[in-house]
């Protein structure tokens, strides 16, 4: 019987669960697949309905988590095997090489500018800018340590020459770590659905049709355009934007469920556009406006009344492109006036479904827990034990067990921490 806890996933949910457990004096291992913690929330510009700058409120938590004496943060690592039972799990973790000694690297970035190859898509910035073979995952990354993309590295050695700290080790080996924990909390989050399969919306075919997560990076001050809303075709600010809801969600051909956050997400993105550019015209195409959280309806009312966001009840039939201007053209049934209309805008933002993160099936297999039909983690008792997976001692929280927004994910993370403590206490008794 051990009372250490493993937390899988270093997004806001995983961070919160770790901090709560560590606050109780429990030892926590936080495993994150990406080279930095922060998750999707770190990629957002602002958050609804308060307009808080996302990274501003998250960064202190990331730091608190990383520097907590009771938390071991393992980034660029994956859980590869789990054996044993609640109170006594043995977990194999693969720490993938980042080809940099995390202890020695100061994050100065000299090596980043020394790398002659800078044409790889930057994952954090949704491939809207390129990065080098050696890179810092993002500006506020925690840990702020560089990493080498060995798949593309030509081993020119420039980075090694310039690194005063001698942190670069191009021959670093993967490391397998075995830990012993009493409980496991899974918070592996979500991915954004790739809308290129929805041919009628032209994502991938038309440059000025982008996804909501790409938009977040575009309006973010620390994003690829420095916060200027430069549309991809001509790097100019569009004078109108249309946000399209339920792209790949509430759609039985893709994901039948409602992703739960997109109505508010789009509302916020429209407000941001208006704040940045007062003459911007914003349109939101929706089916049901789902503003069911605290302060959400009021937020939508403000968007309508103060920010002049036009809400159009319709799921557009298709998007075409004006060949001259490269403006997307939306064809839709305005269900309230019952007329088919054409709307030409400067930019289209597809609010895509949020789907279980890549690799969730493999993780579920490793953990020995079940997934539901939408590939989210299955809940043992959806009413009274909403955070327990199908296996004792393994808790699931955040988006990986079903659509939810940040406060709900934080709530569940804290709840999962309490459940883990409860499970451990009961086993110890």
């Amino acid at each position: 019987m051990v009372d250490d806890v493993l937390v899988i996933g270093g997004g806001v949910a995983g961070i919160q669960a770790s901090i709560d457990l560590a606050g109780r004096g429990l030892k926590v291992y936080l495993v994150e697949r990406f080279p930095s913690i922060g998750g999707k929330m770190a990629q957002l510009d602002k958050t609804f309905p308060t307009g808080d700058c996302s990274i501003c409120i998250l960064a202190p938590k990331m730091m608190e988590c990383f520097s907590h004496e009771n938390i071991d943060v393992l980034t660029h690592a994956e859980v590869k095997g789990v054996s044993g039972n609640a109170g006594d799990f043995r977990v194999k973790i693969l720490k993938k090489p980042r080809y940099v000694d995390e202890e020695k690297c100061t994050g100065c970035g000299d090596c980043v500018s020394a790398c002659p190859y800078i044409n790889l898509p930057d994952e954090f910035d949704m491939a809207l800018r390129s990065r080098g073979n050696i890179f810092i995952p993002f500006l506020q990354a925690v840990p702020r340590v560089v990493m080498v993309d060995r798949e593309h590295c030509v081993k020119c050695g420039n980075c090694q020459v310039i690194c005063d700290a001698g942190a670069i080790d191009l021959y670093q080996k993967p490391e397998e770590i075995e830990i012993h924990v009493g409980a496991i909390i899974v918070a592996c989050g979500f991915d954004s659905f790739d809308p290129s399969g929805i041919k009628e919306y032209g994502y991938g075919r038309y440059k000025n049709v982008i996804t909501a997560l790409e938009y977040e990076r575009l309006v973010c001050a620390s994003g690829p355009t420095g916060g200027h809303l430069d549309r991809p075709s001509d790097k100019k600010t569009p004078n109108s934007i249309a946000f399209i809801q339920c792209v790949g969600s509430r759609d039985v051909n893709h994901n039948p469920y409602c992703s739960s956050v997109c109505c508010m997400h789009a509302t916020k993105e429209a407000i941001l556009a208006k704040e940045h550019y007062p003459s911007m015209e914003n349109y939101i195409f929706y089916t049901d406006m789902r503003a069911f959280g605290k302060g959400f309806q009021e937020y939508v009312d403000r968007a309508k009344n103060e920010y002049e966001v036009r809400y159009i009840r319709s799921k557009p039939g298709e998007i075409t492109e004006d060949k001259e201007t490269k403006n997307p053209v939306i064809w839709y049934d305005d269900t309230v006036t019952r007329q088919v209309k054409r709307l030409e805008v400067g930019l289209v933002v597809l609010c895509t479904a949020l789907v279980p993160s890549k690799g969730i099936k493999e993780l579920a297999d490793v953990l020995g827990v079940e997934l539901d039909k939408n590939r989210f983690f299955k809940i043992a008792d959806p009413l009274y034990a909403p955070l327990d997976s199908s296996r004792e001692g393994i808790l699931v929280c955040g988006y990986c067990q079903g659509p939810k927004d940040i406060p709900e994910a934080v709530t569940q993370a804290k709840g999962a921490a309490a459940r883990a403590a409860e499970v451990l206490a009961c086993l110890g008794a």
Partner: protein
Amino acid sequence: MKEFDPKIVAFCCNWCSYAGADLAGVSRMQYPPNVRIIKVMCSGRIDPLFVLMSFLEGADAVLVTGCHIGDCHYIDANHKTKNRFEFLKEMIAELGIGEERLRLEWISATEGEKFADMVKETVEKIKKMGPSPLSPKVMQ
């Protein structure tokens, strides 16, 4: 001549009115940059001395703000603020500074708009009234 640009001192409590001022910022409610906020833990900490000192140094107006009556983070400390404010107000009037230059406002953490409106109104009003008789602008 440059337009009269009043200087306003605002005392805010940590829990409500300071948070309300934060919310005004978070909500990007625009107001003129004439106000200087000094944070105390509770409006009960606002010594009449601080208010008088502000006028003495040249403030054109002073804003005393705190949690709504009943919401005070320190039970009822803001009741004391209210009592003190009443005699301060009398005193300011007697001094001939003009009682309208002192304003008490209860602002909650959710009332960003109220904070912004208070600043806007005060700036407008003081601009019409002109500088405080104690202001260095007048002394010169």
